[in-house]
Structure formats: structure tokens, C-alpha cells
């Protein structure tokens, strides 16, 4: 590990991605789940930028920029749903939101 290589960044990206995933799996607060997904997306961005750095290309950076933009659009929608639901049944606990089930 003398030199900084893409492996470093990829391991960091995998760590963030999987921590985010575990957050989605374990939390029941909708907002925290939402934050966990943001973590996953950031993990992806690290990977993209790491690859771009490794290959001396701009493609990864540009891609990451669009991923950030998409994440922003998603967060608008997500927070909209959360607001509507909260107004409707006064909770953001996903465990309370389970009328639809077998």
C-alpha cells in the first residue's frame, strides 16, 4: 500500500455502499432509510470518481455529477411522499405503514 491506487477508493466505496445498505435493512425511520440510500449513492460516486482518476478520464466525473443530480431529484420526491404520509397518518415509522401485506 505504498502508492495510492484505485483499490483504496473502491474499498471505501464498497464500505459506504454496504453500510448504507445495512442502514436500509435495519432502520425503521423513513428519513434515516433515506439517508442510508444517500450513503449508498455516495459510495457509487466514490467508485465512479476513483475509476475516472485511475483512467485519466472525465467520463466518471461527469457520470457522478449526474448521479448527484438524480439523487437530488429523488430526494424531492421522497420527501414529498414522506410529508404526505406524515400528514395522513402522523408517522414516519415504516413499521406503522403496513396495511398492504398478506
Amino acid at each position, binding site marked *: 500500500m505504498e502508492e495510492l491506487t*484505485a483499490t483504496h477508493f*473502491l474499498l471505501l466505496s464498497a464500505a459506504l*455502499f454496504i453500510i*448504507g*445498505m445495512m442502514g*436500509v435493512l435495519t432502520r425503521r425511520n*423513513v428519513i434515516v*432509510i*433515506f439517508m442510508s*440510500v444517500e450513503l*449508498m*449513492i455516495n*459510495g*457509487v460516486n466514490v*467508485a*465512479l470518481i*476513483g*475509476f475516472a482518476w*485511475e*483512467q485519466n*478520464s472525465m*467520463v*466518471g466525473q*461527469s*457520470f457522478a455529477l*449526474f*448521479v448527484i443530480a*438524480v439523487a437530488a*431529484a*429523488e430526494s424531492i*420526491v*421522497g420527501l*414529498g*411522499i*414522506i410529508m*404526505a*404520509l406524515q400528514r*395522513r*397518518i402522523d408517522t414516519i415509522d*415504516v413499521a406503522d*405503514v*403496513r*396495511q*398492504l*401485506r398478506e
Partner: protein
Amino acid sequence: MLPGLETVNPDLALLTPHLIILGLALLLLAIDVIVPRWRGAPMAYLTIIGYAAALVATLLMIDTNETTFNGMFRADDFSVFVNIIVLTAGILSVLISINYMTSRAEPGSMPVPEYYTLITFSILGTMIVGAAGDLLIVFLGIEMTSLAAYTLTGFARHRTTSLEGALKYFLLGLFASAILVYGMAWTYGATGTTNLTEIATELTAFDTAGGVEASLLLAVLLVIIGLGFKVAAVPFHMWTPDAYQGAPTPVSAYMSVIPKTAGFAAMVRLLVQAMAPLRDEWTIIIAVLAVVTMFFGNIVAIAQTDVKRMLGYSSIGHTGYMLAALAAFGASSDLNDDLSVTSLLFYLLAYAFMNIGAFAVVTWLQDRGRGVDVEDFRGLASQSPYAAVIMTIFLLSLTGLPPLVGFYAKYYVILATVDADLIWLAVAIVLASAASAFVYLRLIATMYFSQAEQPAPEGSTPFLGAGLITMVAGTVLVGVFSGQVIDLAQEWVEALTVPF
């Protein structure tokens, strides 16, 4: 200008259908503000006219096969077929929505203008996926479709289940999107490009003797998982029944076709076009997913009592058949003989008619104050024989009985799998279809052999009626003329391999 960059000189004519749809969406938004009186039916007319115009523009582009925006946009015949599927499905969805939006089937009011706007945006997203020449465009198109779909699922804001369906769909969709884009990142890392045809070229260079490089395989797998969610493949399907049940019924109908088409179009673009050199690896994964999906969907559908939920599971089952079509890819290196993508496209078109049709009959009942339980179909044959006959046609088509379109759809998929020497997959399709017959026949039996307990449904829903007739005609005629359709599809699919 920096080195290595080219001035963009896009050929916007290639985007005509997309631009029409975009213009329509903006127009609908503007009308809401400028002419509020046009909310409702006039808006729906406008939407349908817009879709029809885009359809015409699409048909004029047959055999164009060009790219623009530095290869990011591919106006090839594959995109033409995707456009045809989604625009047809769009027209049908709008037709069955008009009466529902003003009926009392949902508590509270729904903002009509935004409804059509969002459906239009969702269609635009799917059309973008269909014409994508780059991973990034696929991703953006899928996201556009999905964002609109999440919102539409929660459109009945005054019903908690609707919002719940939207929330689940949204959270899991986000999760899957992250997985998908991670897979795209890995693809980029391994090949150094995001252009689909260039990826294919790069992948050919890798030596796959003794197993594929793990990072490459990881890229393929993450993409399959991410898209598997979008098309509702087991075990990534969990959102489907809840979202279908929760969403307003016309939205469930729309959701069963348009986002699914986006998912499959993306699969074709990514797997068939870009990752064709790895087909030995991914076809087998897809085949296994297909079998699991078709059996799971059809078997669990049997125990359902809510018709929307049942159709949700049945749609999972149908995803299985479509995946089977995809798994048959690569039987021969020559796409001209390859039925896989062709049969997949045909299946999607067939599915648009019969499944939106089945949901339309549910809508028809809801508009008349009935519920969506299997019990609500009791004795329908004696009370509204036409509705029962129409529903029977759709259900039989979903079962796969000749001469309805569903039969041909399955027939071509089976043919594709047999051509690919995947006999076990063909057998699985037949067995799963047999299991699915339980599901549909039970509903038919309820309509014909039970005594009605509720008063006869009454009401007037002219648009829905027109939509139903269109879909019955489609279910019958596309089946009857399947030969022509499949020939066209075959011809167009060949465009996938042309690098131009």
C-alpha cells in the same frame, strides 16, 4: 475547444417523437395554469392526440437507424418498437383513467392535470431508455420513469394504502437504483467507457477462458439485480403486489406495462447490446431468475383475494416469461435468427393490451361502486354479460389460449427458448402457464358460476368503454396478425447489432 472534444451538432429530427412527448408534458403543465377550465376530459383528449402524434412520428422513423449526440442517442428500429409499445400503452392508460379520475372510486380529489403530465413524463423516460446509446442515458431514462411511477402510485393521497404503496415502491426503488448505478460504475471501470457499443467492443477483448474476471461479472450481476427490481423479477419483486394494490387502479395498469417496458428495454440495451460478449454468463442467470419468477408469481397469485394484488402477482409471473425470452439470447451469433429479443418485444406489446385490459375491467367495476375483491366479481356474467365476456377474453389471453394474443406471445417465447436449446426453460414455461390457469379460471368461474350478491353495476363510462373495445380488438387482432408483427419486430431488432 479542448482536445478530444467535438462540437455538438445534434440532429434533433431524430428526437421528434421524444420532443413531441416533452412538448406535450410542458403544454399540459401550462394549461393547468392558463386554462384551468380544460382540466379533465379536454386534457385527456390533448394527451391522447399527443401520444398519437408521437406514434405517427415514430412510425415515420422506421428504418432510420442513426445516432446523434455523440452516440448517446440511438434512433434505431429497436427504439421505434419500444416507442410503439409505450405510446400504445399510454393511450390505453389514459383512456381508462379519464372516468376513474372523476368517479368516486377514490376518496378525495386527485389533481387531474398533474396526472396526465406525470404519465407523459414517465412515457418520455421509457422512450429515452429505448433510444439510449449510453449507460448514463439508460440510467436517466429509468429514473425519470420511476420518479413519475412513484408519484402516480401515491396519487390517491387521501387513501393511506396508496401512499404506503408509493413509499415502499420509492424506498426500494431507490435502493435498486443505487445497485443499478453501482453496476454501471463497475462496467465503466472495467471498460473505460459508458457508450454501449464501445462497451461491447471492449468486452470482446477480454479473455474469458477459465472464467470471467470477477469485477466484470460483478458489474453484470449488479446491473441484472438493479433492473430485475424494475421489471419485478423474484426475489427483487417485493414491492410489486403492495404497489399494485395501493395504487389507483388505472395507475396499476399503467405500472404493469410502462415501467416494466423501461426495465426490459434497459436490459436489452445493457445486456444484449453492450454485454453480448458475456452472454454465456448472463443468459444462465436470467434463465434461473426467469424460472423462479414465473413459478413464484403464478403460485402466490392463487391465494390472493384482492384482484389488483392478484394481477400484481400475475404480472410477476409474466415477467418470468419475458425473462425467459431474454435468456434465449445468443442461440446463434447472428441476430437475424435470434427470436429472443423479438419475442420479448412481442410479449410486451401483447401484455400491454391484455393486462391493461384486465385492469380496465376492474376499473369499470370500481367506477360503478364495486370493490376490487374477487367476491366483487360474483355473478358478473348474469349482471353485465359484456363486461364478463370482455374480462374473460383478457383472462384467457393472459392464460395463453389461442387464438388470443397471449397464446402467440408465449408461443414465440417457447420457440425462442427451444431454438436456444433451453428445453427445460420451455417446459418450465408450459408448467407455469398451467399453474397460472388456476388463477385466471378461478376469476372466470366466479363471474359465471356464482350468484350475484350485489346489485347490478350501473353507470356510464364512455372513455373506458372505448378503451375496453380497443383492447379487446388488440387482444384478438394482434394475435391474429402476430405473424406480421413478429416479422417486423425481427427486422427491427437486427438494428441492435449495427454499430453505425
